[in-house]
């Protein structure tokens, strides 16, 4: 599986939601529970992922399991980069 740069994800969340340089929580910590993400914030994360990783996030992928922690983001992006079409319902997967 292709692994995204976890540090880039940490930095993005730190810069855009905490307005600092270093992400202070554990990679498994829920953004929602920590109060650093709301509905508009989720849209911001999706825009970032789509631009940076050139992936398309489908409506049904916008769920807490994929977007609510650094770990969730890393695994989600990793899966998307590994088999993008399979995940978005395409007819055949590319490696």
């Amino acid at each position, binding site marked *: 599986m292709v692994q995204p740069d976890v540090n880039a994800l940490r930095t993005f969340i730190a810069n855009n939601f905490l307005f600092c340089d270093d992400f202070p929580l554990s990679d498994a910590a829920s953004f929602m529970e920590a109060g650093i993400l709301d509905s*508009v914030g989720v849209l911001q994360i999706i825009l970032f992922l789509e631009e940076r990783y050139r992936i398309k996030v489908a*409506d049904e992928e916008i769920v807490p399991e994929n977007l609510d922690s650094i770990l969730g983001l890393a695994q989600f992006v990793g899966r998307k980069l590994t088999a993008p079409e399979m995940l978005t319902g395409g007819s055949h997967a590319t490696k």
Partner: protein
Amino acid sequence: MQLENFLENSASHSPEKVALIFDQRRLTYAEVETAANRLSHALIAKGLVRGDRVTIWLENSPDLVIALFAVLKAGGVFVVVNPTTKGAKIQYILNNSRSRILVTDPRRAELLRDCWSDLPYLQVVCLSGEADHGDPGSCPLQLLASSAVYADQSLPDSPPDKKAIDIDLAALIYTSGSTGRPKGVMMTHLNMVSAATSITTYLQSRASDIVLCFLPLSFDYGLYQVLMAFKVGATLLLERSFAFPHRVLQTAVRERITGLPIVPTVSAILLQMDMAQYDFSSLRYITSTAAALPTAHVSRLRTLFPNARIYSMYGLTECKRVSYLPPEQLDIRPTSVGRGMPNEEVYIVDEQGRRVGPGIVGELVVRGANVMKGYWEDPQETSIRLRPGSYPWEQVLYTGDLFKADDEGYLYFVGRKDEIIKSRGEKVSPKEVEEVIYRLDGVSEVLVVGVPDTILGQAVKAYITLRPGSTLTAANVMQHCAQELEDYMRPKFVEFRDHLPTTPTGKLSRREVVTR
């Protein structure tokens, strides 16, 4: 009639009916009623007396709903605050309302660890959530765990003896004001029962309704979803937020919701989604308020939800709701927010308070049993909004909103008399945001304004001049705001200027800064 009767009557008529769905939980009216009764007895045992204020600082949850009815049953006044409110503002609200009891969860209580000694009126903290979540060790006050209270069979299942009458206060709803300090809108039982009755009348609310609510209950639009569902014995599908729309919509489809209350920000999000995957054939109505629904949204919403009646509405916390546009008028006058709701009268006046005719812009005035009693302990601000009406015995609400009416009396929103920003449907006081930014070292002058935004309606933008030598960045400003302000109040944009425009009298001018 008192507000808690909404729950009590439904629990008595249909005890086994599902009142509340949240996560995987389904609570019947009997279960909510019993939990609220036990909690109300526990609050009384902790010293709550008639008229005492109780601040509730929680995310949307069954515990929040139970707590607000428990407070009413005990004769108290509830104050629901936004779950994203930060410590300094909570402290202000607790002290301003002189709340004796705070209902919150352990994580939020921990955010107050440095201020317990600055909360002279607070005596009891009631903690929501599972008992084994632990309690905030720092809290020196009396603690009460709501889950232990619900399970305590030594507490009566029946409500305490009634003490309050319907002209007693039921709630203080804090709202942003032009002064920068939030003001507590005083609502009596009668005010709120009247508003809920008018709204459920025009929505034709019924026991078979299943209403989705993801709006925070600190926002009166969210709060009334609970009150109105309980009034008619309907079911409320409660969600924490709309942060993960697909998950919320999936649940909504599964539960076959009939009512969908939204704000324009949510409709902007819905219209970006592939809605064909959701079967909303059960949906009976959509309501939208807080800001005008763009006409482009209206036509697309109708295509997406062909079976639903769409209600475009307008209101303000000070009277809850002002007007609604009957759905059949939507094609005829799509930009109107309708007419006054049942049992309410509205009219437009000029600067001298004289009624004006069709097409003329003036301030909207509201009279009705839904109009607030004033702002909590703030006679000066109250006198701006509540003024003598046409009859010598009455006071009417001057909304501060500019409107005009057409020949048939339908209302059109023109603008605000003050410079309050509406973002995501909630009011943001530019002054409150400016005061927070002024606390940063290096800031010389600040102006905060609302700028158009397709998702938010208006986005908050801060224009700042710095003191010589300051190295403050936009990120510094945003980080500071994130620590001090609720989510919806934070600036989305920060722009540094060499100087800010002033009015002829030398005051900073919000109006000018946008155009230069």
